[in-house]
């Protein structure tokens, strides 16, 4: 499985990562090499084997929906790169 420059660019876009040209070229080689090492999984017969998403013996966990104190607004906004009128400030999503 060889990843082309265009494929790497596409994956980066899906992952919301801007990459330099050098990074794309580097990843094209490295990721191909890593994926080649994953081919070993195709040797395993997994017909009728269910997937495992978690290993603990728990199912859905429910609790009462109780009203409780939340974190103060200023504590949560304290780490915001940009804020305005007690809100997180973001770039316009719809022009």
């Amino acid at each position, binding site marked *: 499985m060889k990843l082309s420059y265009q494929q790497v660019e596409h994956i980066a876009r*899906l992952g919301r990562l801007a990459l330099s040209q050098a990074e794309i070229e580097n990843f094209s080689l490295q990721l191909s090499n890593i994926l080649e090492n994953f081919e070993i999984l195709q040797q395993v017969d997994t017909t009728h084997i269910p997937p495992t998403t978690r290993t603990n013996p728990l199912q859905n966990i429910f609790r009462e929906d109780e009203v409780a104190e939340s974190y103060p607004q200023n504590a949560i906004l304290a780490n915001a790169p940009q804020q305005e009128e007690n809100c997180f400030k973001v770039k316009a999503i719809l022009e």
Partner: protein
Amino acid sequence: MSELYQLTIHEAHELLKQRKISSVELTKSVLRRISQIEDKLHACVTIADESALKQAKKIDDCIKNGDIAPLTGIPVLVKDIICTKGIRTTCCSKILENFVPPYDATVIEKLKAQKAVMLGKSNMDEFAMGSSTEHSAFFPTHNPWDLSRVPGGSSGGPAAAVASDESIYALGSDTGGSVRQPAALCGVVGLKPTYGRVSRFGLVAFASSLDQIGPLTKDVTDCTLVMNTIAGHDPKDSTTVQYPVPDYTQHLIPDLKGLRVGIPEDYYVEGMQTEVRTALEVAIRKLEELGAKVDWEASLPHTKYALAAYYILAPSEASANLARYDGVKYGFSAPNASNVIEATEKTRQFGFGIEVKRRIMLGTYALSAGYYEAYYLKAQKVRTLIRQEFDQAFKKYDALVTPTSPTVAFKLGEKLEDPMQMYLSDVCTLPINIAGVPAISIPAGFADGLPIGMQIIGKPFDEGTILRIAFAYEQASDWHKRKPPL
């Protein structure tokens, strides 16, 4: 004992209880040790010396009133991926360089409830992705046994700090070996509890189905004391179980009569260092002498698929977990972007380091349309087989024993340019996270002055048995008493 910083938790506790030392004296001793050797090691990213001394002073007043628990007044370092209210928590990433959490992780609340002294935060591979601590965005940590070598990773800072007496103990996190492999490479004790045993609330998420917080300590007794404190159900982490927490110190029994131990040959992979294999053989003979019934021919044939499955599952979960770093609510935010997508992409381009990007790319690919079934779903099915194999093995054995790492500590820079070689350092530890079972690494020998770790793997929620085996071995050896020549 010449210096207080050399003490273990249980030794320090006795002296504090008898009022032979104070928490302030102990904390000052540890801070002095940090100031003496930190220039060589670079194990810490934030040292909260003033607040640590202030806490210690208050705690001494409590101790005077007879208010003392096993961790009271004893300094601890915490891997910089565990949220500490008011103390910067960076994940050793530029993207969180200035992040100050508004809350404590549950494990920190539990330590504070026992009046532990918070020394500060220690170094790690960025977002816990790495096996050498070279992927820290700030600086690499050096191995105290040989400063030209890595301490392992990703909890390399905590492991190096405990090995060199910069802290009495530390907390790390383990997604594929990140507590056990650095513990092995630095010659300390490191435990990864069963998935669901310790709360992950406040642990910055890397791969949520694999992550667990675990202690790094100078001996096995200390490990039980930390586990007694941090284990247990947490309503804030719905993956924790409601099982009662046993008193782990009850498992500190110095013989192994009646225990069945399996040695899976499948862990002796190509590239395993001869000295590691030899040291393990000698250590396992010791377990036999202590009364364990050892089967040298245990078999877990799916082990060889674990590495591939892990490096699909962990990056896939990581790529989803790290989607939250968009430069809006906290963390680094790239300036001068013209629109929202460009702002996100640039924030992540400049905020994340190379290994984090590599894993986001791998995970995004494995989860993308057309590849999901071939990679992610396939890996999850292989995960089922690996877990089933452990379940089968534990019908025959009470524990499995393997090397923790195929080699001793490697040179700084040696594997940095070859990600596949770096990934192979976790080959003995990551099957345990895939299966969700507990495992401990303890010192079991040296090769050319570098520590070798023995990994003891247990049944789900049976930390007690592996702690017993670790303790019995420790009592019959003195590897854990050796100190690095700093």
